[in-house]
Every structure is written in structure tokens, then in C-alpha cells.
């Protein structure tokens, strides 16, 4: 039975904006991030990487590198434990250890450019890099494929010879197609046949990268007891442990992962990269080994999000009611299967109620890095296609696209494209908030000479996951509380956790001191991802705090010599049910615990279904320079149902950050691939993410429809905001220049082409 909660409004701590507990360390440079790790005797590791996107390895000669002074260990694919082919769930995506291992270090074949073929540990980074240049590798270069159309051709070069693809349940071999799934409901053909208006369009998108500023890193020590200690920047210490143990073929209890501060992840730091390699180098050298990834390798070898080809067809009746939809979705998985076609199917129609729908999704291997989750993985892609098609359908039929979105909005009971029925959701409330927002009701303003303006809107959706979390509490004698929790903190979440505890205990947010635990100091906790952290770990903190109240009631019972059932607790004060004037505050009680049974501790753990569905709608005003094709965002508003905002400043931050990543994706970011499978723009200079100069302030409207599945109504918020920007901007560009773009990025070049 799933517990549900009535919304409350009289919060003391929830909804306030305390300074984050880890803030002082982070503004003074004292916080220790993965790359800052230092240990006695620490040496550095680097990888030797393939210059080719697809090639057989004929031979590797490491003797010159090994002979260099200062080199302690050299490893190749031969040193990787042979992991069996086994699928493990990581929260946001699955992992197969055989492929995961092969992705980190090539066996006899390289599958993407930058694929490691050897790794070196040496006294310092410069020496290790010098030694890496002395490794000689003989390759037999193979033809490569870098897009889904080429990868599915009859004569396409095959990446994984042992791949057995799943085509609607049928096994297929000798293929780059890992999976083909379908979801079909209602009478799709019949509905299209009777539709008054239809539209069918193809959309294409290039891969983009998460773009976290901190490169991947890892420090590992494989000691003489066969215990492996790892310090790293990860989105989940426990899922990292699962992966490291699986790839190294040791029991999980042999691996201790200490999560250091993490410099951004957005999903990209769920998979491990360097951790197992540093561990093997450590075993060989008997020293702790640290590795920090070079930026070009971050682009070329770590988690982009899938490039996509999508065909959307929509049908509506004469009254503007959506009646039918089909979506054909091909996603690039990179060099191993796992392209998020599942989430894409869950998200594509989610903002709408449509009776007759079909979705076909294909997971396709290409000679590019294996994709990793990136903020609502799969959803921004299908949002671009779906929301562009919705606007075009409205344009052709002469309908107002906001009113159309309101009239067709999904609500409680609506069936999602994959068949799931929605519980209480806020799509309609969000759209109503758009309609009454200042932005929507302000004129677009006149464009200066030589420029054109347009306004666009679009919806976005993410389902938000629940999963497992743990929290421990201990009371200090001064009336403060130590909180240990398992969610690595990427954006202020430990403060939101402390606020959950403080709200229950009736103390201040700063009376709770939160710590993110390592894998030996806290119970299992899933990734910081899927917009689950504040929801699920917050829930665990709430449980732990309530359990602590129960423990403390027993202590009060000792103090007053009554039964603990006769003790009440309200707003930080314990009282006797029999004698209401008999009270003791939390702080005072904390000081007496030594004489009342000793330390008071508690724990909370959860395994939850969903963090509540998240819907948002964005409004984008663009101004396009007709001579250069450059697009400026002149005004931008994010409207989103955030459930209850525990710490509103960090919720706003999620909305703003997600929107800006979407803006970058819409206008400029892409993996620009050369014919031979090389990425031409693998630096921040050439990849060109948004800077301060490219953006206005980002306005936010937080609609709060409390999630009945959380004690305070928390809903996941972090991922939804990256979904609407791309189509909102596409729709705005259409309004500005009269031509619609069906491909990302919608950069100056493509706009100039469209203007011709």
C-alpha cells in the first residue's frame, strides 16, 4: 500500500531559503572535489586512446613506456577481468558489465574515437603523458558509422559481432539494432482516417554533451587485503560501487566508494570511467593512483545524450481535439546498447490526452561514445519533435497553440504513451499559469531594424523516479542533530535533506548538520538522478526524524516516569498527554540524554515508485539578426509544477539551469562529426556552451501542486526544465522568420539557410 499525504501549508522550515551547509567550503575553495584528492605516495594515471572510431587492434607495444623512469604500471585490455554479459539496473539506465568493461578499455577492437587501449601510472601526470606517447599500437582501420540511418543499412559495418538485437521480441544477429520496442493503444489507423487535420514531419538532432565543468576523475587504492578504496566524483557512491565491483569481478563489500564533492553531472557521472582503471593500475603499482580526464576525452568518450531521428504524425478532429498520434524514434546508443528509447516513449505524448497512439523506438549502435543519461534522457528529443508538430498542426488549422495545449492537456487518469495512467498531475495548472503570466501578457516588442522577433511556447515532461535511499540521525548534547545520508549532493540537496529533518523536529535548518556518507557509513542509496533526491532521500530523512521522535518519546517517558504512549510531540516540544503543562523542548531534552538512556539515534530508509510526474511549459522570446542569422534570447520564462519547493532558491536554480542547457542545445551545441568518426569540436571553445553574454535573466513561475506521495508534497524538479526549451525556441524562430527548422542545432548557419 502506497502512503499518501494531505497537503499542508503551515511550514516552519520548508519553503525558507537558508544558506546551504556546504556553502562556506565552496566559496572559499576548501571543498574537496574528486580532482583535489591527495594521498601519501599518490601517483597519476593516464590513458592511451585510439585515434580511430572503428578499428581492429593488431598489436600493442608498451615496452618503451614501461622502461621509462617514473613509470610504475602499464595496463591494456589483457589486464581487464573478463566480466560476464549481465544486465544491472542503475536507476537511470542499465549496465552490462561485459560491455561496460570493454567501453573503458578496448579488448581487440576499438569502437569509438578516444577508446582507451592502454593506461599508464607514473610519478606525475606529465611523466605519465610522456610515457603514453611511447606506446605504439598497430590498427586495422574499419569503416565507421556515425548516424542511425547508415548504421541500419544492409551493408553497414557491424560494431558488436556478439550482439543479439531484440526486434519486437524476435532475436536478430549481425545487426547494429539493439532493440526495437512498440507501444500501441486504440485504433490508430481508424482515428487518422477520420481526422480533420493531420500533420507528419521528420526531425533530426545531433548528439550533445552534459558539459559539466569538472572532468571525470578517480583515485583508487587496491590494498594488500584485496580491498579497493575509491574516491571519486560520482552521482551515486553505491551504484558506482556496483559498477566497479562488477567490472573488476569482486564482491561489492571489497569496494569502498567515498564520494567527494562533485562538479556537475547531469546524469553523465552515473557511469564509471576511470575508477576501475585506476584500481587496476593501483594493484599493479601498489600505490594509490589518481586519474583526471582531459577535456577532449570528456567530449569524445563520456556520456553524450543520443542523437535522434524522429517522425511524428498527429491527427485532430475539426474541434481541435487530438485524436491520433504516431512516433517513430531512432536513437543513437553509441558503441554499446542503451539509448533511452524507453523514457522517450514514456515522455513523447505525456502532456496530452490522445486516445489512439503508437510509438516505435529503435536503439541503434554507432561508432560514437556510449551515451549516458543527460537530464531527462530521451525526453528533450521527443519534446522537440512533438511540440514542434503540435505548433505546426495549430498553425495549419488556425488554432491558438496555447489554448490547444490547454484543451488537450493530460490530467489525472490520462494514459501515457506507454500505457501508464497518471495520478494527480499539474499540466493544466501549469498551462493556466502560463496564460496569466506576466510574460505571456506582455507584448513581444518591436525588433530593431534588420532583426525579427518571435515568441514560442512548448511543454515538457519527466516522470521522476523514486528508488532507494537511506538516512541516519544522531542527537548532539547541544540540541543539534547529525544527519548522514547517501545522496551525493550536486546542487544543494544536503540542505534540503536537513530541512526535512528540521521541519519534523521543530528545530532550525542549521541545527541539523548534514553529511553525505560513503558506502561504509550509510545504507544503500540510489543515484542522485532521475529527479529523485529531494523526494526519496528527503522522504527517508522525514522517516528517520519521525523515528527519532519515537526514540525521544521513550526518553521523555523515563524522565517523567510515564508511558511513552502518553507523550505528545508538537513543534519541537514534548508534552504529557495527561498533564498538558508538563513540557520539555527538544534542545533541553538533548542535554539530558546522558541520564536518560544515552545516545539517541535513528534511521530511515525507503524504496519508492515514483517522485511524481513533472510538467513544465516555457515561454521564449527570440530576436534574430537577419543578416547574420544569430538568435538572441531576449526574454525567457519557465513555468513548472514543482510540487512543494523545500528550498525555493535551489528549485529556481534547477529550473534556470535546465532551461539554459536546453537553450544551448537548441541554438548551438552539437557533436560535429567528420566522416571518419572524429568529433571536430571536442573543446569548450568549439563546442561553445552558453556563456553569461548569451542569456537574459531567466524568470521562473513555480506552480505548487503538492505531490500526494511525499509527506511535504515534493515532486522531482531537476529534469523537466531541459525539455521545453528546444521546441519553444523552434516555435519562436518560426514566428520570427516564417520558416520552421526541423533539425538541431538551430544555429546561425541553418537560420541563414532558412532565410534564403
Amino acid at each position: 500500500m502506497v502512503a499518501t499525504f494531505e497537503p499542508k501549508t503551515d511550514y516552519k522550515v520548508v519553503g525558507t531559503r537558508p544558506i546551504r551547509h556546504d556553502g562556506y567550503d565552496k566559496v572559499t575553495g576548501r571543498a574537496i572535489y574528486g580532482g583535489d584528492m591527495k594521498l601519501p605516495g599518490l601517483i597519476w594515471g593516464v590513458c592511451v586512446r585510439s585515434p580511430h572510431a572503428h578499428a581492429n587492434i593488431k598489436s600493442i607495444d608498451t615496452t618503451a613506456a614501461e622502461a621509462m623512469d617514473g613509470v610504475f604500471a602499464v595496463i591494456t585490455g589483457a589486464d581487464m577481468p573478463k566480466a560476464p554479459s549481465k544486465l544491472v539496473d542503475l536507476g537511470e539506465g542499465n549496465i552490462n558489465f561485459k560491455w561496460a568493461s570493454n567501453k573503458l578499455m578496448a579488448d581487440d577492437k576499438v569502437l569509438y574515437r578516444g577508446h582507451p587501449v592502454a593506461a599508464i601510472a607514473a610519478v606525475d601526470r606529465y611523466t605519465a603523458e610522456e610515457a603514453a606517447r611511447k606506446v605504439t599500437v598497430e590498427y586495422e582501420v574499419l569503416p565507421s558509422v556515425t548516424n542511425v540511418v547508415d548504421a541500419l543499412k544492409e551493408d553497414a559495418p557491424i560494431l558488436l559481432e556478439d550482439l543479439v538485437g531484440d526486434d519486437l521480441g524476435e532475436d536478430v544477429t549481425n545487426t547494429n539494432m539493439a532493440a526495437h520496442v512498440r507501444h500501441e493503444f486504440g485504433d490508430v489507423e481508424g482515428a487518422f482516417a477520420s481526422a480533420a487535420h493531420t500533420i507528419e514531419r521528420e526531425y533530426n538532432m545531433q548528439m550533445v554533451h552534459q558539459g559539466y565543468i569538472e572532468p571525470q576523475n578517480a583515485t583508487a587504492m587496491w590494498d594488500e587485503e584485496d580491498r579497493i578504496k575509491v574516491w571519486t566524483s560520482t552521482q551515486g557512491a553505491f551504484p558506482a560501487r556496483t559498477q566497479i565491483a562488477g567490472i573488476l569481478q569482486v564482491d561489492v563489500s571489497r569496494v569502498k566508494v567515498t564520494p567527494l564533492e562533485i562538479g556537475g553531472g547531469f546524469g553523465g557521472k552515473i557511469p564509471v570511467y576511470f575508477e576501475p582503471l585506476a584500481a587496476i593500475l593501483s594493484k599493479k603499482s601498489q600505490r594509490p593512483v589518481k586519474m583526471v580526464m582531459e577535456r577532449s576525452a570528456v567530449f569524445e568518450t563520456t556520456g553524450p545524450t543520443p542523437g535522434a531521428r524522429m517522425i511524428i504524425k498527429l491527427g485532430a478532429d475539426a474541434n481541435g481535439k487530438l485524436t491520433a498520434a504516431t512516433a517513430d524514434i531512432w536513437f543513437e546508443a553509441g558503441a554499446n546498447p542503451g539509448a533511452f528509447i524507453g523514457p522517450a516513449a514514456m515522455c513523447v505524448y505525456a502532456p496530452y490526452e490522445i486516445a489512439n497512439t503508437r510509438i516505435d523506438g529503435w536503439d541503434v549502435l554507432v561508432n560514437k561514445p556510449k551515451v549516458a543519461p543527460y537530464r531527462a534522457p530521451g525526453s528533450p528529443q521527443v519534446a522537440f519533435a512533438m511540440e514542434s508538430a503540435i505548433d505546426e498542426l495549430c498553425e495549419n488549422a488556425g488554432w491558438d497553440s496555447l489554448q490547444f495545449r490547454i484543451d488537450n492537456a493530460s490530467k489525472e487518469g490520462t494514459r501515457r504513451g506507454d500505457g501508464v495512467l497518471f495520478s494527480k498531475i499539474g499540466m493544466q495548472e501549469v498551462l493556466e499559469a502560463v496564460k496569466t503570466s506576466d510574460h505571456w501578457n506582455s507584448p513581444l516588442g518591436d525588433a530593431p531594424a534588420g532583426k525579427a522577433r518571435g515568441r514560442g511556447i512548448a511543454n515538457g515532461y519527466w516522470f521522476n523516479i523514486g528508488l532507494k535511499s537511506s538516512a541516519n540521525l544522531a542527537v548532539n548534547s547541544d540540541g543539534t542533530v547529525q544527519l548522514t545520508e547517501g545522496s551525493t549532493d550536486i546542487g544543494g540537496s544536503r540542505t534540503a535533506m536537513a530541512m526535512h529533518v528540521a521541519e519534523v523536529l521543530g528545530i532550525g535548518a542549521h541545527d541539523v548538520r548534514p553529511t553525505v556518507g560513503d558506502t561504509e557509513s550509510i545504507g544503500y542509496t540510489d543515484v542522485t538522478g532521475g529527479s529523485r533526491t529531494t523526494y526519496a532521500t528527503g522522504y527517508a530523512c522525514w522517516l528517520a526524524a519521525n523515528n527519532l521522535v519515537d526514540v525521544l518519546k521513550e526518553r521523555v517517558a523515563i524522565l517523567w516516569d510515564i508511558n511513552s504512549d502518553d507523550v505528545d510531540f508538537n513543534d519541537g516540544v514534548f508534552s504529557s498527554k495527561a498533564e498538558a503543562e508538563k513540557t520539555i523542548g527538544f534542545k533541553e531534552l538533548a542535554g539530558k540524554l546522558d541520564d536518560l538512556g544515552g545516545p539517541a539515534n535513528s534511521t530511515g530508509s525507503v524504496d519508492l515508485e515514483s517522485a511524481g510526474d513533472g510538467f513544465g511549459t516555457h515561454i521564449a522570446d527570440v530576436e534574430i539578426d537577419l543578416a547574420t542569422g544569430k538568435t538572441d534570447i531576449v526574454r525567457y520564462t519557465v513555468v513548472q509544477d514543482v510540487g512543494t519547493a523545500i528550498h525555493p532558491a535551489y528549485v529556481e536554480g534547477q529550473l534556470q539551469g535546465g532551461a539554459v542547457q536546453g537553450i544551448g542545445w537548441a541554438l548551438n551545441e552539437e557533436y560535429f562529426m567528420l566522416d571518419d568518426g572524429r568529433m571536430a569540436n571536442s573543446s569548450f571553445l568549439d563546442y561553445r556552451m552558453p556563456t553569461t553574454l548569451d542569456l537574459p535573466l531567466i524568470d521562473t513561475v513555480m506552480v505548487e501542486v503538492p505531490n500526494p506521495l511525499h509527506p511535504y508534497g515534493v515532486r522531482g524538479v531537476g529534469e523537466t526544465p531541459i525539455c521545453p526549451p528546444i521546441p519553444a525556441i523552434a516555435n519562436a524562430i518560426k514566428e520570427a522568420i516564417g520558416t520552421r527548422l526541423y533539425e538541431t542545432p538551430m544555429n546561425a548557419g541553418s537560420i541563414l539557410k532558412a532565410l534564403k
Partner: protein
Amino acid sequence: MTTNTPSKVHVTTTINGQQHELLVPGYMSLLDTLRELIGLTGTKEGCLDGNCGACTVSIDGRIVDSCLVLGAEVDGKEVSTIEGMATPEGLHPLQQAFLEEAALQCGICTPGFLVAAKGLLDNEPSPSEGRIRHWLAGNLCRCTGYDKIVRAVQKASS
């Protein structure tokens, strides 16, 4: 190292007001000199090619990407890093404003932004939003969308 041992350079420099005498390998960046030789890891590495600003420090009052400067080049110069920004009296107003405005999420870009923003406010105490955006365009933040960073700098301006 035998044949290719690079020579080390004798460097005397002031870092956050304290004098250091160092032997810096000729190839070593100022970023690594700070992080590896001196142990000041508050200055961060994001790209090593001058395109993220995470490694921003100031040399004689001028902000630079320390990954693009050699350690040997700061001989006789004054270097300021994030570790030198707060005083025994407390945080610098920019640091305080970043905390109050929630201008950091992961925080990896924060030291660079703070050192860069200080470089602006030291010379122009009341910059416009446009000026702030122009000045900070060399610092990348992937988490915040910059809104709260710009507001924090505005708050710390007089």
C-alpha cells in the same frame, strides 16, 4: 628521469600575501604549481585550454586563466587565489552574496567566478548587468544558467 629531465626554475612569488620560494619544472602550469606544488586546490581545472575559467586567479591584479600561464612566469609577481579572498574578519562581500543568492549549485565554477568578479568590482564598484555579463563571459557555469550569479555580483556591487 634520465635523458629528458627538464630543468626547474627558481621562482619567488607572493601568493595570497605570503612569500613562496619554489623550484618549478619549466613545463608546469601555474594551475598545477598552485594545486600540486603548493597544495592550493581551490583553483579548479575544467579544460586546461583557457576556455572555462575554473582556474581563474589574479596576477598583479589582473585576472588570468592559470592553466595558460607557466608557474615560472610568476617570479616576482603577486598571485591571488580563492583561498586569499576571505579575511579573518569574514567572507568577502562577493562570497557572502553568492551564498545568500544561491549562486552556486555544484560549485566547481565558483572559485573562478568569485576571483573574476572581484577583479571587476575592485576597479568598477557599480557595474551594469551588461558589464557584468561581458566581464564574466570567460567563465563557464553549466549548472545555474548564470541568473543567480549575475544577481549575486549585482548584490555585492555598491
